[in-house]
């Protein structure tokens, strides 16, 4: 069966006849319910408009609540009213047409030229707004009608819905009369479709009343009814409409009628859009502005973005996440509570009917929660009815079975910035109440475990499950399409663990090696006789597939001349035939975003092997780091007295130099840098000097902390933190800045940052240089400056997230319809516009590319040559 598809949607303006035709009842009274709580006939809650209370039936279609979509009613307006959304267009039309004969204020030949131009552009799919604008511009300035010779008076449009001809205000009735005269042949010149709209329809004479299903009333706990905002507004309209009618019939003076007319206009305007400029928004009794039609559609929570583009789903769960390195990266630990609630459909056939029956009869975990009969009825499986259900089970039914190990689910963390934010995992039902995941999959989700929550979705169709497995599984997302490198890989302890394991020539006995590899299933080591010790590199080699690589590690010092294999820092990694011969494993080898080894395995052995490798890496690394014992505390920032002295002298020297600069500046002997003022030069020099001092202090601290310090290990291996963080903790925090400059704001009139300083003090301390370290603690003044600098950082992050979020939304909106065609071109789907002849000029998938290169030529040549 081919599912039905909507071909297209056409937009037109409702005509008064159309409104009356689709209406099931005329609404005349503003009352909604009578004293007994029954809806009043011809009132706003008329039962003909549909049902919202369960149990009742619709008087029009007989459907129950949920079945009946609701039906429109209508209000006959006592006097015509301008449509607020079209007021601007009405104004333009009035100015573009003759006040007497209603024709366009240009000659027919010229009009036809414009119409042809518009037609041409329409056909090409181009925007014809410019041409229409031109028509309005020319006609507005016309003084005399070229058709009847009548002189024209410019009509002024006043927001939101008023028109003035000179001093005289045009009533909507006048407006409507004029619009009626506009010829069908002229409409295309205004960009209007004569089949879709008549200009006079933009002045309303009859108002459609939306069905009650659109504006359901809610019953409060007190039993009171609370009506929807739209109902309130409609009540206002009907009330004024009735008053206008009564007054007109009673022959009230014109002035009163006009006032009522204006009031009616106000209510209709705010009913359509309660945020139009120029008039105060209609308010609820509590003072809250009403949410009327436009407000329902607009904005993030509006109908379009909130309810239509993003929909609510069933079969989903949300929980806090926590790490579990014993899981594979392709798995997710699901709490048993959730697994018992969420279900997987099992489509009953002759072949699996016994299995299905078993699920129904079971009374613990993987059991059936519901049975769905072919007629669509869902029956909950309970102890009382399970025997009966099992008996009646037949092919064609669906049972909803509790989720169990091996099921595929989608796992997601917001903000979903890229496609790796939703990946499919295989379920492992686990005790306790959090979702568990291997920390190596944190980078694509950008997750951590400080209280992050994630969502899980259970695909219900076989197609959906197949797509989840084949397209979205974690192993297929290891390479990022952003840059064609791995985005999943070891983080934090994985990196430090392997670094500790492989650094230098640590020795392990047979027992130790087995215990390190135990979790990988190793029971014993097959090896040549007499081998007593294994080095860390050999242990790592045991989990490596057969690959050959050479590269510089993260810890590479960037020596002027690389000694390659003979690197004194052991920073040159050599892997040959799956054996790690030289070098230390660190972030560059196995880390997310960088991992060269991961990249290589991916290309040589494919995604599953890579996933297994990452699993092995996490296991081994965790074992290694636990075996070694790894901790970090405040004592690790301790530096000897000698280092403190050196640091102090470095900073003092720098401060002295800053003093000198300031003196030179004051005496006017400071040489300005080209294109900079004296003051700017001074600031730059000071910043530079203090920056250098901080770096030097950091170097000293780093030297005294040594390579065995936990923080140093983490920083150099790329596991976490940087040498700058360490510098700030152990040596000196450095200059605090606002907008890239030293802190200068404060008491402007005395030109100082704090009252602790002399006016005009430019010294390092007075402008936010913090010479203490975090460990030593800050002086009150330093603390204050540090808070200033820290606040800027916070504001920066807050602003950036909103800005980049909007940028991403715009990018997605602009590019979402681009698709690669079978011929390799890129086309925009809605307009069919050709964007690229060949995607990316070579048609290569960035994800499959080798860091941007189409084909890894070097590798292929290497392969060919070694085979020979």
């Amino acid at each position, binding site marked *: 069966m081919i599912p039905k598809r909507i*071909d*297209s*949607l056409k*937009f*037109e*303006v409702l005509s008064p006849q159309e409104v009356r035709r689709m209406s099931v009842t005329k609404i005349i009274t503003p009352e909604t319910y009578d004293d007994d709580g029954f809806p009043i006939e011809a009132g706003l809650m008329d039962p003909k408009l549909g049902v919202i209370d369960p149990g009742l039936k619709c008087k029009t279609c007989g459907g129950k609540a949920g079945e009946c979509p609701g039906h429109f009613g209508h209000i006959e307006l006592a006097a015509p009213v301008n449509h607020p959304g*079209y007021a601007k267009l009405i104004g333009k039309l009035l100015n573009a047409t003759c006040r007497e004969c209603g024709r366009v204020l240009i000659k027919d030949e010229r009009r036809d030229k414009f119409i042809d131009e518009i037609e041409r552009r329409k056909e090409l*799919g181009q925007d014809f707004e410019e041409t229409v604008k031109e028509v309005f511009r020319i006609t507005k300035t016309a003084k005399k009608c070229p058709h009847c010779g009548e002189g024209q008076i410019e009509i002024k449009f006043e927001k939101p819905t008023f028109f003035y001809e000179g001093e005289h205000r045009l009533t909507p009735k006048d407006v409507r009369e004029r619009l009626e005269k506009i010829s069908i042949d002229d409409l295309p010149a205004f960009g*209007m*479709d004569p089949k*879709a709209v008549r200009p006079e329809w933009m002045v309303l004479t009859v108002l459609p009343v939306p069905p009650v299903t659109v504006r359901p009333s809610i019953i409060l706990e007190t039993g009171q009814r609370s009506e929807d905002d739209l109902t309130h507004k409609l009540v206002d309209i009907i009330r004024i409409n009735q008053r206008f009618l009564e007054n007109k019939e009673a022959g009230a003076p014109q002035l009163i009628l006009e006032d009522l007319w204006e009031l009616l206009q106000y209510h209709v305007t705010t009913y359509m859009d309660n945020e139009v400029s120029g008039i105060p928004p209609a308010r609820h009794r509590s003072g809250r502005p009403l949410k009327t039609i436009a407000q329902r*559609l607009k*904005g993030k929570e*509006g109908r*379009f973005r909130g309810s239509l*583009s993003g929909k609510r789903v069933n079969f989903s769960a949300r929980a806090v996440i926590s790490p579990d390195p014993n899981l594979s990266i392709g798995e997710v630990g699901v709490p048993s509570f959730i697994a018992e609630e969420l279900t997987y459909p099992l489509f009953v056939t002759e072949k699996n009917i016994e299995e299905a029956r078993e699920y129904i009869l079971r009374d613990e975990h993987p059991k059936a929660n519901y049975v769905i009969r072919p007629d669509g009825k869902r029956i909950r499986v309970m102890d009382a009815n399970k025997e009966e259900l099992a008996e009646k089970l037949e092919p064609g039914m669906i049972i909803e079975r509790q989720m169990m190990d091996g099921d595929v689910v989608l796992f997601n963390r917001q903000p979903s*910035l*890229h496609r790796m934010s939703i990946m499919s995992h295989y379920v492992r039902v686990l005790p306790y109440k959090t979702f568990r995941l291997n920390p190596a999959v944190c980078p694509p989700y950008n997750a951590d475990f400080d209280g992050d929550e994630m969502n899980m979705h259970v695909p219900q169709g076989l197609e959906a499950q197949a*797509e989840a497995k084949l397209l979205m599984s974690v192993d297929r997302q290891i390479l990022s*399409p*952003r*840059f064609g490198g791995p985005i999943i890989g070891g983080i934090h302890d994985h990196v430090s663990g392997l670094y500790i394991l492989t650094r230098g020539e640590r020795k392990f006995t047979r027992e130790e090696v087995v215990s390190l590899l135990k979790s990988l299933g190793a029971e014993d080591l097959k090896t040549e006789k007499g081998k007593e010790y294994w080095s860390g590199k050999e242990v790592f080699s045991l989990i490596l597939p057969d690959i050959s690589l050479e590269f510089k590690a993260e810890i590479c010092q960037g020596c002027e001349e690389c000694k390659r294999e003979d690197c004194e820092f052991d920073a040159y990694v050599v892997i040959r035939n799956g054996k790690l011969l030289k070098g230390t494993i660190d972030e560059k080898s196995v880390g997310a975003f960088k991992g060269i080894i991961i990249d290589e395995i991916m290309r040589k052995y494919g995604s599953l092997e890579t996933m297994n490798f990452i699993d092995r890496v996490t296991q081994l690394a965790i074992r290694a780091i636990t075996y070694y014992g790894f901790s970090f505390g405040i004592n690790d920032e301790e530096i000897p007295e000698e280092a403190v002295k050196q640091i102090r002298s470095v900073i003092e020297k720098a401060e002295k130099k800053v003093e000198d600069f300031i003196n030179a500046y004051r005496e006017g002997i400071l040489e300005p840098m*080209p294109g900079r003022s004296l003051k700017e030069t001074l600031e730059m020099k000071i910043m530079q000097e203090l920056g250098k001092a901080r770096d030097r202090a950091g170097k000293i601290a780093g030297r005294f902390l040594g390579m065995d310090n936990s923080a140093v290990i983490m920083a150099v291996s790329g596991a976490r933190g940087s040498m700058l963080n360490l510098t700030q903790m152990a040596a000196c925090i450095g200059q605090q800045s606002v*907008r*890239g400059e030293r802190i200068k704001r404060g008491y402007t009139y005395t030109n100082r940052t704090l009252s602790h300083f002399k006016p005009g003090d430019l010294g390092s301390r007075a402008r936010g240089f913090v010479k203490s370290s975090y460990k030593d603690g800050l002086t009150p003044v330093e603390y204050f400056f540090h808070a200033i600098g820290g606040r800027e950082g916070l504001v920066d992050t807050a*602003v*950036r997230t909103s*800005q*980049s979020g909007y*940028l*991403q939304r*715009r*990018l*997605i*909106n*602009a*590019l*979402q*319809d*681009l*698709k*690669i*065609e*079978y011929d*390799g071109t*890129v086309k*925009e789907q*809605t307009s069919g*516009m*050709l964007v*690229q002849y060949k*995607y*990316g000029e070579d048609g290569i*998938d960035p994800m499959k590319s080798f860091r*941007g*290169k*189409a*084909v890894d030529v070097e590798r*292929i040549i290497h*392969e060919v040559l070694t085979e020979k």
Partner: protein
Amino acid sequence: MSKYDSVLNKYPIPDTIKVEIKEKLEELKVTKKVAGEVAERCYRAYLTNLMEPGEAAGIVAAQSIGEPGTQMTMRTFHYAGVAEIDVTLGLPRLIEILDVRKNPSTPLMTIRLTEEYAKDRNKAREVANRIEATYIVDIADVETDIRNLVIVVNLDEKALKRKQLTIDEIRKKIEKSLKTEVVEENGNLIVKSEPSYKVLMDLFDKLKKLVLAGIKEIRRVIIRKEDDEYILYTEGSNLKKVSKVKGVDFTRTITNNIYEIYEVLGIEAARNAVIEEAISTLEEQGLEVDIRHIMLVADTMTADGELKQIGRHGVAGEKQSILARAAFEMTVNNLLDAAVRGDRDRLSGITENIIVGQPIKLGTGDVELITRYTRTKK
């Protein structure tokens, strides 16, 4: 001609790859047989590395550029090459590029000179003087003499010399632009005015704003030597005027104002400028983004010959689909206008189909093949 050409030409691989293979092969000097094997395997690798039909290339590109946006900084840093010029970088710059701002916050030009001027600092200075906007305050002290109702321009000879201007030139320039009489009096210029205080002050303001030499938009020029060649870096940009300055090698002159490039050099140049600027902005932040994604964005912005921004007034706002536009921004107006125009939404895009609840025409949703279900006979 290389001996490997005949081997390589058998395969329809893009030239860039061919060149790379050839270079590598020539380096190793392998036999033709090996070369054939390499070419064959490269071709196979190329085929497997191709993008799949139906792939949502646009969304992947949008995500690849949008996602690193969260990691970018907001601040204006110093330009990597010239410490003296501030340049907007990071997220604000990326937004500026994709918005196609007509007036970017920090326009900047890199001007290379013709051979004649490039080697000599003084010659380069000469060109710089022709480009840099010079105001009267740069070369003189200006005062109003209220008693005589004249403006006294006290010229600084050193500055004059540096700017390579003569008193007479300045006198003529002022006379011509302000349409008043200017006389020279022992090295000073006296600008005469009508006997009215108001007119004098107006004249004074005008004189201060008068560009005596150079191009108005270019506020500052910095000369730097790079690889025995003098290069001019300017703050402010005006590609069109700079192109006409003598001594400028226009073929090697660039600006970071993309809209200017579009106006002066056309759409292809604009496309390349968008790619160039976007990739350098991302690279400067240390973010790795494949160039194909940026190419796709640039091509979308320039596909119909006009440089359009990403957003409401450009690509996203000119979508054919009414529902897609309504879901993006300006919901109500889009719907009202569509009704008057009698527009039809053909439901061919993504958002539209999501809205009406149909499968989208991308990836697996784009496949129209259906297997005919027949019961196999036993």
